[in-house]
């Protein structure tokens, strides 16, 4: 009797192990095939590009790093090997970087205001009419699935090269992202405050102003600030397809194959994102603090 139990256990265990191993083997096989096909299709080891990929990456890094000379580091712009000759158009780049920051701030602001309206139409507890909710939610979803850059390509074709297309693209994508988040915040509010307002005879606008906004604004602001950080990186990238700002300068550096200039502008972008992240984090922590108080 006990022998039978042990045997059955051993059999089951062996079967389980076999199944796990078979699953792992199949998974590994699929993974390997996908990997091989991917490397083949993406021409990673393609010889037509000049042989070994690692050598090419090394060569590229070498071209990207500027020829700085220690003794001439703080000389003027005309001296080869000085920092000033590396960052030769610094005022122009800083101006373009500021434009990118402006694009991100404007788009986040406009997008957040539009998202505010959309979120009231999409929230279950504030919009009693289901078809409106459904349409607004699907529209927001459609915006979120469309990649920003594809939207930017079309908008640049329509509105011309410049910051306008970039601001519009980021506004629309911010509306899609924040609209959903705001609607979720709206649905989690305390219903008692709304009931009190309804009982005292307030209309829908007053209910939103006094019953909803005081509860949700700190959360809204926090999400909008996170979105601002993302929009800044987005705005820098959108410039590449012609939507203005620092990305345009990146594109220009590439057109003239100035790889070291590219690195200089890239460093400005990284610095810009870093500063905005710090500011936004500080403001967000203050907001969260206020919310708790």
């Amino acid at each position, binding site marked *: 009797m006990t022998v039978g139990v042990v045997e059955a256990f051993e059999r089951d265990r062996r079967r389980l192990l076999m199944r796990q191993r078979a699953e792992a083997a199949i998974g590994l096989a699929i993974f390997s095939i996908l990997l091989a*096909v991917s*490397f083949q299709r993406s021409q*990673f080891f393609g010889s037509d590009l000049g042989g070994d990929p690692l050598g090419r990456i090394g060569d590229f890094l070498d071209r990207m790093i500027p020829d700085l000379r220690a003794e001439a580091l703080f000389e003027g712009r005309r001296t080869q090997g000085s920092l000033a000759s590396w960052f030769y158009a610094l005022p122009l780049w800083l101006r373009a970087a500021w434009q990118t920051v402006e694009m991100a701030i404007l788009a986040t602001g406009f997008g957040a205001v539009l998202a505010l309206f959309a979120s009231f139409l999409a929230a279950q507890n504030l919009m009693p009419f289901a078809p409106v909710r459904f349409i607004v939610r699907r529209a927001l979803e459609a915006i979120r699935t469309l990649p920003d850059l*594809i939207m930017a390509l079309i908008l640049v074709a329509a509105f*011309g090269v410049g910051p306008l297309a970039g601001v519009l693209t980021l506004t629309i994508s911010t509306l899609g992202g924040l609209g959903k988040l705001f609607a979720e915040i709206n649905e989690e509010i305390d219903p008692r405050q709304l009931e009190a307002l309804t009982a005292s005879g307030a209309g829908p606008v007053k209910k939103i102003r006094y019953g909803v906004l005081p509860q949700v604004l700190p959360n809204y602001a926090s999400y909008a600030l996170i979105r601002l950080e993302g929009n800044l*990186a987005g705005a820098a990238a959108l410039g590449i397809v012609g939507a203005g700002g620092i990305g345009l300068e*990146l594109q220009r550096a590439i057109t003239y194959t100035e790889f070291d200039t*590219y690195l200089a502008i890239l460093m400005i972008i990284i610095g810009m994102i870093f500063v905005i992240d710090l500011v936004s984090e500080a403001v967000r922590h203050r907001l969260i603090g206020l919310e708790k108080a």
Partner: protein
Amino acid sequence: MAGATVEQARAIAPEVLRPAWRRRARGLVFTVAALAAFLAMAIDLQLAPGAFMSGFGKLGRFLGEMVPPSSGGQFVRILKALAETFAMAFAGTAIAALIAMPLGVLGAKTVVSHGVLHFLFRRFLDVFRGVPALVWALILVSAFGLGPFAGVVALALADIPNLAKLFSEALENTDGRPLEGVRSAGASPLNVMRYGLAPQFAPVATSQTLFFLEGNFRNAGVLGIVGAGGVGFELEERIRIFVFDQAAFIILLYMVAVAALDSLSRWLRNRLA
């Protein structure tokens, strides 16, 4: 006594006892300042209402031309481009995961416990975390020529710092007790890793990598815009020559593919969890 209570109330909630007009004035000043700042930025960027209006006219025409979407007899070519986009995403994610793994180990506080080193390493990763793949792709295409190779490297470069950070966090979050248990049973260091650490770490890392694969498929689609091959390249070409019915076809097909990969990856991730 009553004075003391008011003092206490003021200490607890100063906002409530402040005169209403002061609160309102503050709100008003803030709103006006914000609006003025917005207006100044819009003027600085030269966002003219005229350009806005005429642009909308054009946009309407483009959208009209998008219906009905058409493959233009190039369905096979578009499918090939889609496969190339997936290949870029897959290869890029695989390379990123491979390189991020040792970096993640170095970034884990439990491995490199020296505070300053840990801080410097994390900051170093942070610096590169913000650079979008497209920015890498632009320069890589210029360095390596048109084609998907640049896209693969761009995706990998953009992912490595992010994945490394997530990997080191996953390592830091592992429970030390299973390791101790395996070690106390007399296992070799390798077996401690295999039976104590891997069962905790591998599912988390795999699921994060899958998550990045989804993201990379989205990113890979647009990398083609700067010449890194795949579906973005085809799309850019068609938008440039204003063939919007084919552009719409590519966008729709690509979005379907993204949704399909997302649900496949979600299914896999749910199985892992």
